[in-house]
């Protein structure tokens, strides 16, 4: 696969007057943003027809950095805003850039309902196991026993597996990678962008400043090495026992299917209504 030099991507898609970004040294969000822009570029998607939506958090700042229509909304609500955009103008392609706290805690209800409806949206989910922007509080994804400022002795709660949650709720496409798996990541985003219905690509993304420092993983590279240690490809995980999978995170493509999307269902619904009520075409 040929990769364009980064500066070409930057020149083409970023708002220069918004740089530098707020991302800390060693942060993974910039890398995932690059994967997303490369996927858009590779597919030759029309910049005019894409709207980026986000909520609140480090990763939610992304719509401000990219030269597209963008709606930077309230904490957790991005997918509810996205529902209005996509339904009211189905010609637009909607990308939601979200964090784990944004998507799975405060926005958890919007997330599962957007998936249940099979809303036509591509979610790029940055999972750094913490609330980075607010200083490293425990998140609904923090692995049990790991620390945050509000879990100083290690989290005592069970974390969410967002990818599994999305599969169970009915998403059309779900994949999870770490930032380290860049080719797989770009390919998954490309796939997700081409599909109808709800698609989600989750990235384990390093936050050395707010998360790593408190868990003996002080730098970006240390976190990436840790991801390599704890991640298991889905093909391999199939043959592993629950005991062997303890403390591991499965990566790969979780589901790839074509259930009718919300937009398709609404079109069919209108047709059905017309037939039932005998309205003229």
């Amino acid at each position, binding site marked *: 696969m040929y990769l364009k030099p980064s500066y070409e991507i930057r020149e083409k898609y970023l*708002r220069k*007057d*918004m740089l530098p970004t707020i991302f800390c040294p060693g942060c993974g969000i910039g890398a995932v943003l690059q994967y997303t822009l490369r996927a858009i570029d590779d597919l030759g998607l029309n*910049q*005019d*027809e894409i*709207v980026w*939506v986000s909520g609140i958090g480090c990763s939610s*700042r992304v*719509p*401000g950095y990219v*030269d*597209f*229509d*963008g*709606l*930077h*909304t*309230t904490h957790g*609500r991005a997918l*509810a*805003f*996205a*529902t*209005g*955009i*996509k*339904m*009211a*103008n189905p*010609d*637009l392609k909607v990308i939601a850039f979200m964090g784990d706290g944004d998507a799975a805690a405060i926005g958890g*209800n*919007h997330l599962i*309902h957007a998936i249940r409806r099979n809303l036509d949206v591509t979610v790029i989910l940055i999972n750094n196991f913490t609330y980075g922007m607010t200083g490293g509080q425990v998140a609904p994804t923090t692995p049990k026993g790991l620390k945050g400022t509000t879990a100083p002795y290690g989290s005592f709660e069970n974390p969410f597996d967002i990818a599994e949650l999305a599969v169970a709720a009915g998403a059309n496409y779900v994949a999870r990678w770490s930032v380290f798996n860049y080719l797989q990541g770009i390919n998954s985003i490309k796939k997700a962008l081409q599909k109808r219905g709800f698609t989600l690509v989750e990235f384990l993304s390093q936050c050395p400043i707010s998360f790593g420092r408190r868990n003996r993983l002080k730098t970006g590279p240390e976190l990436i090495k840790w991801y390599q240690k704890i991640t298991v490809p889905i093909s391999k995980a199939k043959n592993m026992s629950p005991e062997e999978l303890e403390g591991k995170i499965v990566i790969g493509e979780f589901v790839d299917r074509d259930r009718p999307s919300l937009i398709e269902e*609404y079109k069919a*619904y*209108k047709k059905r*209504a*017309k037939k039932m*009520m005998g*309205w003229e075409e």
Partner: protein
Amino acid sequence: MIIRGDEPEQIGLLKKLYPKGNYFMQGDEAIAYGALFAGCRFYAGYPITPASEIAETMARELPKLKGYYIQMEDEIGSIAAVVGASWTGLKSMTATSGPGFSLMQENLGYAVFTETPLVLVDVQRSGPSTGQATKGAQGDFFQARWGTHGDHPIIAISPTSVEDSFWETIRAFNLSEKFRIPVILLADGIIGHTREQIRIPDPEEVEIIYRKLPANEEEAKYPFGDVHGDLVPPMPLFGNGYFTHVTGSTHKENGLRDVYTPEVHDRLVRRLHKKIEVHEKEIQKWEEYYTDDVEILLVSWGVSARPSLGAVIEARKRGIKAGLIVPKTVHPFPGKRIRELSKKAHVILVPEMNLGQMILEVQRFVRDEVPIISVNKIGGVPLTVEDILKEIESSAERSRHRSAD
């Protein structure tokens, strides 16, 4: 413009589906039809008594008009979807009641700050909390004004009958579109569930306003700038290649975030306020009855305005110079006009279905010149002509004594 680009077809559809004439319907339904005539083609909502009939009517009618209806997972999501739809260019609405209105406050603030046109209907019910879910009230007067956090302007309108609900909903959309601001329609559970005769007009008889769009690329660069000198920026819609960035953080005229420069925040928030202040005359609306020689002035709104008028007419029959002013736009409040009238009045009575909310606005403008008396009723039962007449008579009695002293 009713809807993107297909106006003649929409007018034809409205005429065919809802021919001009007399109909018998609930206040809630009148609000829904008002919205359809105003050009609303997107509705997102969540069921709640006593507002559900608005959602039900929209769910039934919108697909016939090439519109979109969706029931969201909660009220937070409902208003969020409405904001999203509005940025694609569809006039959009949601409706709820007290508890749902509380949930919407967060994104109502987002809509104010991002200057997103939308109409939020609050069919007020008895609170606090779940209260008397099926009973009407007028307890959200200040939730409409100050429910969302921070300095912000708002427009709120309150209709007084079923037919009025139809027309005031249209006015709510027009003000929202004209000034790029969310407008709250403060209806109530009593009018919402009252059935009355209303006249549905020809769509051509209805004056419809659509938001200003940028005339060119240059104007589109400033979605939050005073491009035309009227403080209302043209709204570049999503999907037009303008690459508009919309954020609930403090932003510059070009839409990009800047939360560090005090002047940027100051300029933005002051413009938002000034936008409403300088256009107050266009936004405000009130009705006056028997105020030329008024001695006992009633100030009432929404469902309480009707028994107030009944009581004023009765009082006049008994030789008492009572009069009534009914603010239709309740925020911004027509305080200046009430201050003028208060110069003639001996006493001001404020009948409302709460323990005294609009009266605080009256006091803000009138102060100590004349006694201001609350006429309250809570419990879900509306004020009656008798309730109010009794207060008018005792006030008349008191002022007779005073003048005899």
